[in-house]
Each structure stands twice: as structure tokens, then as C-alpha cells.
């Protein structure tokens, strides 16, 4: 089958009525759980897995995939309107999106998020169709040293995320790295920092950490503020971004799509990582970096495009290599195997219906999402327009339920509440939670890649500069580090000058 007939065949499969119905159901559920903080796609997909036993594998995967990319759309709504990320992948969107909303422009923020997601989704699907097989083989060339270099680059990017103090950001990153080492040491199988608690053997889950730091702390902060000002923006007019918005957002959307697409392919990458990376890239190359964190439209457009592109491209390693890159893909792998399909390099030939059908359905799903999220935004907002007295306990309830259902572990509840209080104090003292989370995500991967590399090289550090891929990443990291040190020095000089003036 040549490319075009494959695509046509895929659309024929996607437009079968039961596939359309389940695709709609998937994106609807996805949007809903995206809007509601706490319950994420992983939890939802595991809960819904049993209902896929009775339907065909193509239909099942179409629905489950819809939940995943639907959640990327829905997550932004809560981030922008409430300032509490609906999903981990919308954490960054909350930074500028909520600021735009507070400044009276919630409509364009939501609009650009939805259009950016749609454009990125479209581009990613085209990329998925055209590039899936060759790209998969590139991803295979990432061995331990290449991952190590990539993670180093990721940690360096942390310093870029620093909105205020670089020192505080690095301190929080250090806390994140330490939290990331809790649990069984992957190399020796020995427990570390578990204080004898078997619940901690698997480490701290990202969900209670992220929901505590961002969600619970936000609620605590809002409880303080409620009387002073309305935090939830409920009047949304003019969803269409202006011409000026489009001009400012066009290139961020393109760059976000691109970086999201490529980061999504890497195992261990995925939607959340891509939002951090694209945001920091935009902040870096922007002519007005000081606008970021205060309602820059590029700060909404880039990460929202990136997470959607990544949500779609993360199917590439699963569908072409049988390698699940993240936990969502691991559940999809399980779903495929229930139906007796083993993903792998030969899957596209053996099950063309599945590959082309699912990919085409993503396009259909993206159109549905655009309709669901723009003209019908009012419905989703109404979900959030409940009075604070009801909404905050409700968010807390959903968050607690969400944290519990992932592992059924009571400890996760205490962790989430503990991190909530910690996050509240962090914000009070002007520490940012984002570097902590990113370092937390990167640290196990970094450690693992480093130790794996050193086993392979029998302890020689030369392995980290033995391939072009890792040399490239390390060079990039070094350049970024140097250039980020310079504004820090500059800022320091400025502060010195300012204090000197004050004292004088």
C-alpha cells in the first residue's frame, strides 16, 4: 500500500460510525478530566480499560488515545481560568495563561491555547504519518550516554525557568533531585531514603507531588485571597485572538509544535517535559523576556502547542517499535495485548487498520476538540464557576481521589497534603515549584543513564563524548549555561547598584 492509499484507508476506518462515537466519547472524557484537576489520563485510562474488552482493538485504541490528547486540551482551561493546572502538562501554561486571564484577556488565552493545540496536533499527525518509521530508528540510537547528555541539557534548562532568583531555583532543583532518589535503587535493588516504609519503596509518585505543590498550595493561597479579589475568571468574551496575538503567537506555535513533536518521540519524554522546554526556549529567544510570567501570549501558545504535538508523537515509539515511552503508552500497550496485538517494528504491515485508523482518528478527534473547546467553552467554565466555598473543597476532593486511585496507596494522600503545605510555604517565601518538579522528573533518568553509561564504559568518562548526539547536547548545555550566567551577573550588578544607590 502506498502512502496516500494508506491515509485514505485510515480515514475510512476513522469514519466508521462506532469509531466516530468512541472517538467523541474519548475526547469528551479527556476534556473533562483535563478540566478537573487531579484525575489524570493515566488513572482514567486504567479505569476505562475493562470496557475496551468487548470492542474491536482499533476502536479501543481510538477511544483511549482520545482521552490522552483530549486531556491536553482540557488541562489548559483550568490552568488559564483558575491558575491551578488541570494536568501536569499544563503546569507551565498556568504561569502566563492565568496572568492573561487576570488582566482581562481570558478569551484570547483560551483561544490561542485551543488553536495552538489544533495546529500543533495537525502538524504532529502529518509528521506521524510521514516520519514514523524513520524517526523510530533515530530514537533507537539513543543509548545511555545520549540520554545522559539530554538530561544534563534538561537540568540546564531549569536555570532558564527561573523567574526570579536563580539561586532559589537551583536550591529547589536540588530538593527535586533528592526527592527523585527516594525508593529502590535501580542498580542494586536496595532501598534508599525510605525510612523503613514499604510504601516509599517505589519512590514518590509525580501525581501527589505535583498536585500538592501546585494544586493544594494554590488552594491554600486562594483561601487567603478570596475576599480581596476574584481569582476565577468567569466572564469570557472574544475567544478569537486578535491579529496582534496571532503575530506574536505564530512562531511560538510552530517552534512549540516542533520541539513537542521531537521530545514526544523520545522514550521518557512526553507532553510534560516538552512544555517546560518550549516555554524556556520562548523566554530565551524573546525580545521581551520580562513579559514572561506576566501574561505573554507566547508563554501560552508554545507550551500548549508542544504538549499536543508530544501527546501525538509519543505514539511513534509504541506503534513502530513496541516501546512505551511513558505510563500512558504503557497502558495502551496493555490494551493492545488484551486484543492479541503485539506492537513492534512489523505492526504497521501486520495491522494497517490499526496504525492508519488510529492516526487518522486523531485528526478527527482534534476537530472535535476544537469544537468542544471553543464554542462550548461555556460549559467547561460553568464547571469552574461554582462558588469558592464549594469549588475549593471539590478540587481538593478530586485531587485527593486522583492521588489515591493511581496506586491505592494511603501514603500518597499524606505526601500530597505535606507537599501542599510545603508548596504554600515555598510560594510565601518566593520559591518557584516548577524547577523542583522538573528536577524530580529528570533525576532518576539522569542517574540511571549515567550509571548505565559508566557500566558500559567500565568507568571511563569518555563515553559521554563518544557520539555526535551526546556531544551535541552537551555543547548546547554548556552554551546555555554560559549565556544564562551572564544575565545573572548583569542582574546582580544591577541589584548591587540599586542597593548602593539606596544606601547612598
Amino acid at each position, binding site marked *: 500500500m502506498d502512502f496516500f492509499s494508506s491515509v485514505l484507508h485510515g480515514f475510512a476506518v476513522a469514519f466508521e460510525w462506532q469509531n466516530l462515537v468512541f472517538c467523541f466519547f474519548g475526547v469528551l472524557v479527556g476534556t473533562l478530566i483535563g478540566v478537573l484537576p487531579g484525575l489524570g489520563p493515566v488513572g482514567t485510562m486504567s479505569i476505562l480499560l475493562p470496557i475496551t474488552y468487548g470492542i474491536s482493538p482499533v476502536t479501543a485504541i481510538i477511544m483511549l488515545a482520545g482521552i490522552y490528547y483530549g486531556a491536553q486540551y482540557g488541562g489548559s482551561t483550568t490552568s488559564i481560568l483558575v491558575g491551578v493546572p488541570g494536568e501536569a502538562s499544563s503546569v507551565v501554561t498556568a504561569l502566563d495563561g492565568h496572568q492573561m486571564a487576570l488582566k482581562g484577556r481570558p478569551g484570547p488565552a483560551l483561544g490561542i491555547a485551543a488553536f495552538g493545540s489544533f495546529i500543533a496536533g495537525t502538524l504532529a499527525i502529518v509528521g506521524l504519518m510521514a516520519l514514523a518509521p524513520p524517526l523510530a530508528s533515530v530514537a533507537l540510537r539513543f*543509548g545511555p550516554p545520549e540520554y545522559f547528555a539530554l538530561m544534563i541539557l534538561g537540568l540546564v534548562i531549569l536555570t532558564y525557568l527561573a523567574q526570579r532568583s536563580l539561586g532559589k531555583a537551583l536550591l529547589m532543583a536540588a530538593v527535586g533531585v533528592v526527592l527523585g532518589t527516594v525508593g529502590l535503587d535501580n542498580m542494586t535493588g536496595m532501598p534508599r531514603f525510605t525510612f523503613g516504609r514499604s510504601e516509599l519503596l517505589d519512590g514518590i509518585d509525580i501525581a501527589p507531588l505535583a498536585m500538592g505543590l501546585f494544586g493544594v498550595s494554590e488552594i491554600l493561597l486562594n483561601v487567603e485571597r478570596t475576599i480581596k479579589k476574584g481569582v476565577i475568571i468567569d466572564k469570557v468574551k472574544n475567544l478569537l485572538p486578535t491579529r496582534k496575538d496571532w503575530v506574536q503567537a505564530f512562531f511560538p506555535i510552530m517552534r512549540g509544535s516542533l520541539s513537542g513533536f521531537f521530545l514526544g518521540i523520545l522514550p521518557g519524554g512526553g507532553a510534560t517535559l516538552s512544555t517546560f522546554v518550549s516555554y524556556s526556549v520562548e523566554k530565551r529567544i524573546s525580545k521581551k523576556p520580562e513579559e514572561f510570567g506576566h501574561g505573554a501570549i507566547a508563554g501560552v501558545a508554545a507550551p500548549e502547542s508542544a504538549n499536543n504535538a508530544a501527546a501525538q508523537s509519543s505514539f511513534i515509539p509504541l506503534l513502530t517499535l513496541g516501546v512505551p515511552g511513558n505510563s500512558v503508552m504503557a497502558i495502551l500497550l496493555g490494551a493492545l495485548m488484551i486484543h492479541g496485538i503485539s506492537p513492534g517494528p512489523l505492526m504497521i504491515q501486520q495491522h494497517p487498520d490499526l496504525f492508519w485508523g488510529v492516526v487518522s482518528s486523531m485528526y478527527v478527534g482534534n476537530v472535535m476538540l476544537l469544537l468542544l473547546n471553543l464554542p462550548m467553552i461555556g460549559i467547561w467554565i460553568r464547571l469552574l464557576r461554582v462558588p469558592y466555598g464549594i469549588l475549593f473543597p471539590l478540587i481538593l476532593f478530586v485531587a485527593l481521589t486522583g492521588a489515591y486511585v493511581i496506586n491505592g496507596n494511603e501514603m500518597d494522600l499524606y505526601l500530597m497534603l505535606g507537599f501542599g503545605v510545603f508548596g504554600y510555604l515555598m510560594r510565601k517565601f518566593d520559591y518557584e515549584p516548577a524547577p523542583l518538579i522538573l528536577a524530580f522528573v529528570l533525576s532518576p533518568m539522569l542517574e540511571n543513564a549515567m550509571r548505565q553509561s559508566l557500566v558500559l564504559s*567500565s568507568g571511563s568518562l569518555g563515553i559521554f563524548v563518544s557520539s555526535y548526539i551526546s556531544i551535541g547536547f552537551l555543547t548546547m548545555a554548556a552554551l546555555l549555561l554560559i549565556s544564562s550566567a551572564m544575565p545573572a551577573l548583569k542582574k546582580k550588578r544591577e541589584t548591587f547598584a540599586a542597593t548602593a544607590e539606596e544606601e547612598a
Partner: protein
Amino acid sequence: MEYKKSVSRFVGRGVLGALALAFAGSATAAADFPAGPITMYVAYAAGGTTDLTARALAQNTEKILGVPVVVENKAGGGSTVANALTASKKPDGYTVLVSSTSSLTMRPLLMKVAYKPESFRPLMQYTNYVGSLVVNTDAPWKDINEFIEDAKKNPGMSYSSAGTHTQQQVAVETLALCKGLQFKHVTTKGGSASNTMLMGKHVNFAAGSGSHLPFLEQGVFRELLIFHREDRHPKYPDTPVMKDIGCPPSNPASGLIVLAPAGVPDDVAEKLASAFKQAAEEPSFQELLNKFNMPYDYKSGEEIMKEIPPEVEWYRDYFKKAGVEMVQ
């Protein structure tokens, strides 16, 4: 004061009630069992293949016993979290657990856990994991003998595994001990990460854990040696086992087992065991195991009990030889 009195009266009544229930329970335990829903803890994450087999087993058992069997996932710590939790539950037959034999035999040697093998009453085993030595299809070695010869000449060939001290990784080391070979072990986060590492040619071979089997069928990988079997695998009759190359058997195969807390009344345990056996023998369940490339390997509770002490000794001996620090 009034409050305190009423509380104590309430508690007193509760105790009496509980005693009455306990008596009633012991008199007609099996006849009335089960009178309510049964909780099945699963020591693995939701959505994984192990979880899916447990859920299918629960579904079939529901039909046989006529009460709901509610699955709860308690993943973590190499199954130790779920084991500790189940060991702490009342042995009334309303709590069962799906876990692995190695969580009873191997894990407690390496870390402090809140249970012993004696904390459980095994009900049955329904499958086991068979490990193998896996290479890429285009690897230079035609068979295991060529591989061993090459490994002798070039010490330090690298392999990936699904984790340190997993049964497949231990099996590779038993081969190394037997033939005097030396390998570099690259541990990964699980079977599929290990497969990727081999596919990308970052290691020379891999300790196959079961998730590599689809790649065999697709012609991406080849198996040179199968570990945890006495005789050759009926599906892969051309692949040698340890005996064929003159080595003692590798470590015991870890099985997926259904456990109840120790102290379950005998008749209740028997009723449960026969229900689970019947559920596992149903064609739908057999078909599911087949899809996941898991062999059906039934063992009764008594058989499992008998195999535990020698298994513990095997691992104790192995860790001593390998210089791994043990907690007991």
C-alpha cells in the same frame, strides 16, 4: 461521664457482637462462605499484563462463588507492599492476594519486610516467568556455543535486564558462573526498556523476561538459551536449555501465585482454592495467558509451600557467592 459510659457500653456491645459473629463464623465457615465481596489485592500496577491476568481470574471467580471479587492494585517495592498489607489482614478468606513467589523467597533476604513466607497460605500458582538469553537477529553468534566461546575470548560483554536480582538477571549470572564468563550488567526500568536497549545495539545481549517474545515472532530477536526449564520449550524446540550445555539448572522460576493470610480456616481455603483453580482452567483465561505468552503452570498451595524453603536457600547461597549484602 455520661458520654464515657455510653461509649464503653457501645464498645462492650461491639465486642460481644464480634465474639458472637466469630462463633457463628467458625461453626459454619465453609457453608456460609462467601457471604460478601472478596477483596483481591494485586501486587502490580493497573493495566500491566500481570494485572490483566489477575483481573480476568477475579472475573471468572466471581461467577463461580457468586459474590463480587474486587480487584485493588497495590503495586510497589517488588511486590513487598501488597504482601505486607495482605499479611496484616484478618484471615477470614475475604482478602486474597496475587503476587510472585520471588516476593516470598528472594526479596526478604535483601530488605526488611513486614512478612514471612509463613504469613501466608498459598492457594495456587497459575503461571510462571521463563527467562532466556536474547540477541539481535543479526548478531554474529549462530548458537549458544559460539556465543560462549566468544564470551570467553572477550570478557566484559554487556547485557541489559529488566532489573537487578530479577529472576532473568540472576539466571544470566548462573550461566556466567557455570562457564566462567564475565559480563557487564546494565539494569533498566523493566522488560520493554531492556528490549529497546538491545534493539538499539547499546548492549550485546539481553536477559529476556517475557516481554521480548513478540519480537521473536517478528524476527527482531533470537533466543540462544532458555533458562528456567528442565526440558526444551515445546514452542521453541530448537533452543537449548541449561541442561543441554552441561550446566546445573539456573535459579527457580518465579510464579504468579494467589495467597491468603495464614490462619484461614481449612475449609474456607479449600473452597477458595478450588474456585480459583476452576476459574483458571476456563478457556477464556487460558486464551488470555496464551495472548500474553504466559505458560499455564498450575501448582497447588501444598506444592508451593514445599518449594519455598529450598528456594530461599538457593537465593541465600547465590547472594553469598555473588557478594550481595543480605539482611537475614
